[in-house]
Every structure is written in C-alpha cells, then in structure tokens.
C-alpha cells in the first residue's frame, strides 16, 4: 500500500500557498504510507541558462559549506546553494552531465535526486509528518506538486527507495501499487546503457518511461507502451514542467480520487486527503477510469 497526492493551482495567487494547501493531503495519507515520504514541487523556473539540482546526503552533520565551496570551484563561481536538513538545492550554469560526473567522482555520498529548471525534490524515511517538518513542506511555493507516502512491500525502506523517482529533466513519477515484472524490464533496459539507482519496482517503470521518451515518444505514447510492458497494479502520477498526468491500470486495483474547481486540481488515493481543501464541497469529484490518461496543465 502507498498514498499518492498531487496538487495543481490554477490561480497565480495560490502558488504562494501550494505547500500549505498540500499539507493536510500528505498527512491524510499517513496510514497508507507511514515509512517514507517524498515530494517534487515545480517552482518558477530558474534563468534560461541555469539548472537546479536537488541533492541528498544521508550522513548527519555533513558539511554543506565545504560542499558548496567545492561546487563553486568545480562548477563555476556563480553556483548557488540552499540547504534544508539532509537536502540541498544547487543552482548552476554548468551542464547537467558535468554536474553528474562531478558528483559521482568527487562526492559519492551525495545523491542526485532531480535535475531541471523548475523541479525541487525531497524524499526521506519517516512518517509523512516527520518528513514534511524536516524539509518544511508547508512553505513550498510553486505551480504544482507530486507527493507520495510509502508502505514498502517489495524493496528496502531507504531514502533512495522512497518516491518520487525522476527521469531526465523536470519529470517525476510516484506509484501506488506493485509491478510483477520489474526485473525483466531491468534486464531489457540495462544493456541499452540505462542505469538504475535501486532495486525498486517503481524505478523500473520510471526508467522504462525515461527510455521511451529518450527515444522520442511523447508522454501519451510512452504511457500506452507502458500498459503493454508493465505487468502489475498501478496508479501512476507524473509531474512535468507544466503538467500533472494520472493513469490507473486496467483493473483499477489501486484507488484514486480527483477534485477539481476553478482554483485547483487535487489528486489523492482517497477522499480523506482532499477533505480539508478550501471549498471542496463545491468541487467536481470523480474517480479516474482505468487505462485513461488524465493530463492537467499548470
């Protein structure tokens, strides 16, 4: 079991309150996912030639100041960084590949969680309430977000195994359900040079989607191919730089509820995560149909 939440605000003034509006949604999914939580928020973009990198270091007391100095030295003097507990967001004009290589070689203990112009990503072990407090989710600002609470059923409970998973730039995926063929997908993708960070089943889906998009498929085509390749149960919620996309397996084995009004689109595994949203009584509430792709644009 796991819990999924997604929120996309339609009014610019609500972007300031994105995290605050989301908090009861994530906390409402605590029973479905008490062991880890994670969230990707899509913010205003960094300047044209810039990228931001969400990174994580499990070691408590890690010296981020030394890391920042090294980043400026390796990636350019204009490199900026903000730290929140075990996470940091690095903003740089260096190309993504240079940053990835530098991290891999010089800082193996620092894990890259996301790359893009809009995405910030946090994930960690602990209850949703603990993780949200650790990374101050309540004050996040942005146009849309994707969140997850995890009850692990198939692989270890570690920050790396928590959701969201990312592929490419400004793209992430969360999953409620379980896949029965993650290893055959992995055996298919690894010879193509696609690397895996964990043995998590959702990561197999994520790498599969990454591969299809890298090969030039658009998101709907990628998802349709996923219906053929991915065996198992899933509700997938994906975030792109300006969209939320939702899809359920053919048997609708895993729940999902959507609430929409002129202020927001909110998605959760269950209504209890939507109950505290403003003006929810007048929102259109529905359950997404199986194998139908729902996309909302920020």
């Amino acid at each position, binding site marked *: 079991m796991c819990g999924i939440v997604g929120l996309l605000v339609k009014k610019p003034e609500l972007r300031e309150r994105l995290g605050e509006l989301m908090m009861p949604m994530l906390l409402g999914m605590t029973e479905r996912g008490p062991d880890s939580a994670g969230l990707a928020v899509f913010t205003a973009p960094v300047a044209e030639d810039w990228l931001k990198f969400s990174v994580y270091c499990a070691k408590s007391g890690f010296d981020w100041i030394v890391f920042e100095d090294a980043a400026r030295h390796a990636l350019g003097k204009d490199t900026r960084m903000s730290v929140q507990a075990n996470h940091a967001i690095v903003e740089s004009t260096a190309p993504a590949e240079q940053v990835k290589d530098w991290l891999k070689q010089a800082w193996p203990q620092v894990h890259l969680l996301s790359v893009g112009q809009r995405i910030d990503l946090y994930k960690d072990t602990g209850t949703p309430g603990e993780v949200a407090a650790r990374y101050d989710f309540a004050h996040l600002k942005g146009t849309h977000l994707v969140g997850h609470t995890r009850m692990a059923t198939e692989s270890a409970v570690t920050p790396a195994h928590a959701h969201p998973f990312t592929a490419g730039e400004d793209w992430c995926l969360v999953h409620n359900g379980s896949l029965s063929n993650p290893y055959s997908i992995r055996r298919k993708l690894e010879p193509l040079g696609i690397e895996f960070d964990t043995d998590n089943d959702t990561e197999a889906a994520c790498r599969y989607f990454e591969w299809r998009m890298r090969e030039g498929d658009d998101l709907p085509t990628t998802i349709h191919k996923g219906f053929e390749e991915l065996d198992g149960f899933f509700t997938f919620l994906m975030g792109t730089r300006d969209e939320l996309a939702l899809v359920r397996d053919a*048997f*609708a084995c895993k*729940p999902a509820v959507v609430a929409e009004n002129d202020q927001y689109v909110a998605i959760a595994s*269950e*209504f*209890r*995560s*939507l*109950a*505290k949203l403003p003006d929810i009584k007048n929102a259109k*509430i*529905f*359950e997404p*149909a*199986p194998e139908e792709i729902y996309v909302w644009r920020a």
Partner: protein
Amino acid sequence: MAGVMERAPQVRGGKVVFDLAELPLREVNQFLHQDLRAAGVKEVRVLNPDGAHSIAVGLDAPVHVDIEGHAGYYAAGMNQHASVTVHGNAGPGVAEGMTAGEVRVKGYASVSAGAAAHGGLLVIDGDAGLRCGISMKGIDIVVGGSVGDFSAFMAQAGTLVVCGDAGDALGDSLYEAVIYVRGKIASLGADAKVEPMTEEDCVRLGALLKKAGFAHDPKSFKRVSSARTLYHWNADANQEY
C-alpha cells in the same frame, strides 16, 4: 453493558448527532453496536465523515443512519438491520457483506460495491466503479448510473439492476444471480448471456425499481443471466471459454 463513550451523546427524541471532526470514529461505531438500543435511538446523523473508513459497519439494530458527506472504504459493511444513507460518494466496498437492511448512496460508489453481500438492498444514485456486486450472494443492487468492468463477477444469487451502461466482462462466471441493464453492455463475460425479458422479470424488476425510487419502464431493460455452460467441467474445452 455500560456505555463505552467517555462523553454520553445527547439523545433527543430518539435522535443523536455525532461529529467526526470532534469524535473518533471508533467511539461512534461502538455506540452504534453497544449503546444504541438502551439509549432508545432510532435516528443517527454522522457529520464530517470526510472519507473515513468503516463508518457504520456491522449494524445489527433497526436504526436509520445519515452519513452527511463522503465515506471511505467499507461504509455500512456487514449491515444486518439498519438503513444507512451516504449523502455523498462512497469508497471501495460499500455495503460489502450485507445480510439485510438498506444502504443508499446519493453520489457515486467506488469499486466492489455490495461485494459478497447475502441480502438487503443497495441503491446507488450515481455510477458504480469496477466489480460492482462481485460474488454477490443474495443482495439486490440498483445502480442509477453505469457500472464498471467485471460487475457481478461470479455473482451467485440476487439481482443487479443497472439503469445506465455496463462495462466490459459483465456477469463473468455467473451463477444464479440475474442482471438487468437498461443501457449498453460493453461486453459480456464468460458464460453470461442476454435473454428475453419475461412477464415475471418485469414484475420483479418493476418492484425493485419502485423500492429504489427509479421510474424507468422495466420493459426498457435487458436480462443477463448464466448460460450455465461452466457448471460442469468440460475436459474437451481445452481451457478455452
């Protein structure tokens, strides 16, 4: 047995109101199970259900319960004598395992509505999700809207009435339950077949529609029941059905 609630609820004229924004659901369900009869309560309102699971499950007294909002998983499950109305949508497994009584959902019902229920009446004003009436064993289910795929899968006894459309694999592996569908059937499941409506069907369906509060003409429905070809093992079928 003494009451289990820390604060005794205020009963007025056989009515009592519980607000789930203030009271844990467990206390409300314990009152419904243990204190209801002694307190002479005939009507219960549950405010702010907000999608909580298992509201008003296992009721075994003739009481009316109004759930004033959306309910989560298993609302009014295992009902025996109560009449429960959900003034909103119901989550997965509403009225599952019911043996008698009546459950009404004013909005839509999620998957597995009325699953494995032995008796009573479940009325869903809106649509029902996938697997509505799965393995039903005697319940009557009337859905004002449409039902999702695999509805009445392995349904053994009772009646499923669908005023809208039915999804794929309707009535797969049916036993003796009967399905009436007013709209389109996306596809029938293995061993389900459409049959002509008899006079007896019209009387039975007319009575059910009236009880459920729908004015449709029974003659506008199709009857789906078991072709009974799966009742006996056919070694020559080579697992193809």
